[in-house]
């Protein structure tokens, strides 16, 4: 019983709900709800990727070729025409000395790719999909792309138009539903704690 109350602590329920959609309900003993919500959220997320392709997961801080967006730092400004905050090309020799866009201007990066906020609420499955998306985006032959004067093409092109929109909707709605499930499960867990506390106080 003591273990049960530790497992159904609201913060733990919320974390479990993010780690695996529906797991929050499982911890508070609502197995049927856990299975239905978890299956619906995960099916929706996977269906979004099936519809629009893996590149529907557009990760902030990374460009169309799956490389980190790096910005010229103040120390790297050495010639006319260069300025701090300028986007560096991934073929630039000083690329890795540049500031990471995701840490130096996180809000701008997230505003550029707002769907990701919804998508990441689905949990680690989205982080795995992000990794696969970035891997798919990189040019097939990076060395040839680096040597070539022709602008490199992504390994897998991102989808466009209606199909991309529907895929983004599926994946983002899955995440937002999971957020609702996390809040609801945590709220039910806290209600359960309160009622247990009241029952104990009444019997004392």
């Amino acid at each position: 019983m003591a273990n049960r109350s530790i497992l159904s602590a609201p913060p733990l329920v919320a974390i479990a709900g993010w780690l695996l959609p529906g797991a929050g309900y499982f911890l508070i003993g609502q197995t049927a709800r856990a299975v239905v919500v978890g299956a619906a959220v995960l099916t929706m997320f996977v269906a979004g990727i099936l519809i629009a392709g893996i590149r529907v997961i557009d990760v902030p801080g990374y460009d169309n070729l799956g490389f980190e967006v790096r910005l010229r730092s103040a120390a790297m400004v050495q010639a006319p025409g260069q300025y701090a905050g300028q986007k560096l090309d991934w073929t630039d020799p000083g690329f890795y000395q540049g500031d990471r866009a995701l840490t130096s201007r996180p809000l701008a990066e997230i505003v550029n790719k707002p769907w990701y906020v919804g998508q990441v609420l689905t949990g680690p499955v989205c982080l795995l999909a992000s990794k696969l998306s970035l891997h798919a985006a990189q040019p097939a032959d990076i060395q040839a792309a680096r040597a070539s004067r022709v602008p490199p093409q992504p390994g897998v092109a991102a989808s466009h138009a209606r199909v991309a929109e529907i895929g983004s909707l599926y994946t983002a709605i899955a995440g937002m539903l999971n957020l609702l499930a996390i809040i609801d499960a945590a709220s039910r867990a806290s209600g359960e704690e309160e009622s247990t506390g009241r029952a104990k106080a009444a019997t004392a």
Partner: protein
Amino acid sequence: MFTTPILAWTPFVNPLPVWDYWMLLLLPMVGLFSIAYKSIKCGTMEEVPRQALHIFVLCLLGMAAAAGLLWGLVRVREWMV
């Protein structure tokens, strides 16, 4: 009609070749949304199927009404110009 895109299609990598039927993809989305949403909101799971069906129909009617309204607005705009 599907021959060429399907030959080049890799599931989960390339977009689904349903360019002409994208609107049908809204049906499973609304269905899954209704089930998940009502599973969260309902007090008991026995209520979920009926409630989910109710909200599923309402969502579809709402989307059809919004589409009709927007279509009408476009027509009025075209008529004015």
